[in-house]
């Protein structure tokens, strides 16, 4: 029973990482119609920036520097490269973002080497917390709480601000937003930077839990795409539901039969695609260009 609880909380933490990456992926796709295979690279860059800052300045600053650095990188990438591919076919977007992800991975390998790395969490957070029958590392619970707060802030931004209103309208009809005088390009840049910053922050914050190597981006990207498909492309709550579902499924399968833990998420995706192709909370309505 204790192992089951451990696995469930582990699944929650893993699922929240997937949620954070998938929310970025899904709002970027919704607003920019961009299938962004470079999104995992944002996680990896955030993780390495966090590693360097944590080792040389302090863990607190890592959480500040990582999202800012990744957001700036994303804006540059958007302005210099991706903007040229907004109106291109998804295949072209997929290839260019996949190429960017490979360039980032190899650059990280060149700078930091291929070995696995991790920074130590602050001493004050190295303790454990007792939750009923189990004892769990305090940092992991804090991480989970932090991600939940961050997701709540993102939701408030999307649902309660004027920019969020433009973003939500742009998800459905970019042309009409412009016909009303809305600056969809600026809103798109903000969304892209926001999605990247979330991935970067989670990358930095998760490094004490999950060690990193240059291929980390892909390791988290692929399940996050599964999450987006399961939850429904373009749906915030779909990403939340899909992330938690996939995280728990992976963690519990790992407990029951570890070799199947990576396969089970793809089976889940196939099942959802067969029964509800638009995803659990996705809409089947055609989105205007």
């Amino acid at each position, binding site marked *: 029973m204790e192992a089951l609880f451990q696995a469930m909380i582990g699944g929650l933490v893993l699922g929240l990482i997937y949620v954070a990456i998938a929310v970025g992926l899904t709002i970027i796709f919704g607003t920019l119609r961009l299938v962004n295979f470079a999104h995992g690279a944002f996680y990896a860059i955030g993780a390495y920036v966090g590693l360097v800052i944590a080792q040389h300045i302090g863990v607190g600053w890592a959480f500040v520097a990582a999202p800012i650095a990744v957001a700036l990188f994303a804006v540059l990438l958007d302005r210099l490269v991706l903007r040229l591919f907004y109106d291109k076919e998804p295949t072209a977007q997929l290839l260019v973002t996949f190429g960017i992800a490979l360039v980032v991975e190899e650059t990280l390998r060149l700078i930091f080497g291929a070995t696995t790395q991790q920074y130590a969490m602050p001493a004050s957070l190295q303790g454990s917390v007792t939750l009923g029958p189990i004892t769990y590392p305090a940092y992991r619970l804090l991480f989970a709480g932090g991600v939940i707060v961050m997701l709540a802030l993102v939701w408030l931004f999307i649902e309660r601000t004027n920019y969020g209103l433009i973003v939500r309208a742009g998800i459905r009809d970019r042309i009409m937003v412009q*016909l009303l005088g809305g600056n*969809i390009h600026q809103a798109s840049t903000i969304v892209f930077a926001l999605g990247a910053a979330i991935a970067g922050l989670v990358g930095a914050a998760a490094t004490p839990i999950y060690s990193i190597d240059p291929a980390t981006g892909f390791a988290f990207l692929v399940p996050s795409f599964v999450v987006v498909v399961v939850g429904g492309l373009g749906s915030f709550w779909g990403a939340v539901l899909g992330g938690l579902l996939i995280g728990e499924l992976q963690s519990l399968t790992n407990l029951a039969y570890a070799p199947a833990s990576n396969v089970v998420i793809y089976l889940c995706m196939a099942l959802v695609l067969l029964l509800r192709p638009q995803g659990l909370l996705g809409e089947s309505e055609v989105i205007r260009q």
Partner: protein
Amino acid sequence: MTAPAVTPTAAQTRLRVDGINTYYGDSHVLRDVSLHIGAGETVALLGRNGVGKTTTLKSIVGWLKPRTGSVTLDGEELVGCEMMAIARKGISLVPEERRIFTNLTVAENLKLAQVTAQKPGWTLDHVYEKFPRLRERLTHKGDEISGGEKQMLAIARALVQDVKVLLLDEPTEGLAPLIVREVENVIREIKSAGITTLLVEQNLYSALAVADRCYIIDQGEIKFEGTPAQVRTDEDLRRRYLHV
């Protein structure tokens, strides 16, 4: 065929389209289209399906870029400007398909138009006074309201902005006769509010009832400019270009 009697002077001209040529790929859709609308005028652009009416509106708002020719608002050139910039200068298109944001509520659709407006237009109280059914549907999503309500919302969305020229594309299309009359009343309200309007309609008699002047377009070319009375009385003109 041309009736110059009601042409506004250059000083009064609010919107001027001058010899535009617009293409879809290699297909030449608009051929030297010229028209002008005076401040406060309601002008109808008439024609059969697929003759270039909507393309004319899209060329004015920057949705399509004319290859040659000029579009000016109060003398300021618009060709080459982004859609957003043209909207912010005060040209508002209510498109044929309404294009209501179906994932937003009626209230959010209106709020978005207020948020993106360069200057405010009608207040929400004024909107609800003119479109009382919208007040009753504020919390409904865009896909939960009727076709007539969608049309009212699309027009209201334009009017909460400080609109200098309103472009209405087939506002009565697909609506029940009772709702068509409501929309016609709304257009009369807009006219009486002094808002410059270019009305694209296939519903000939609906357009003639509110227009000060008319243009008829056929195969991408302006074939007639004159008064509604001329269109009403010239059977040959109607049969040749409007098939009625």
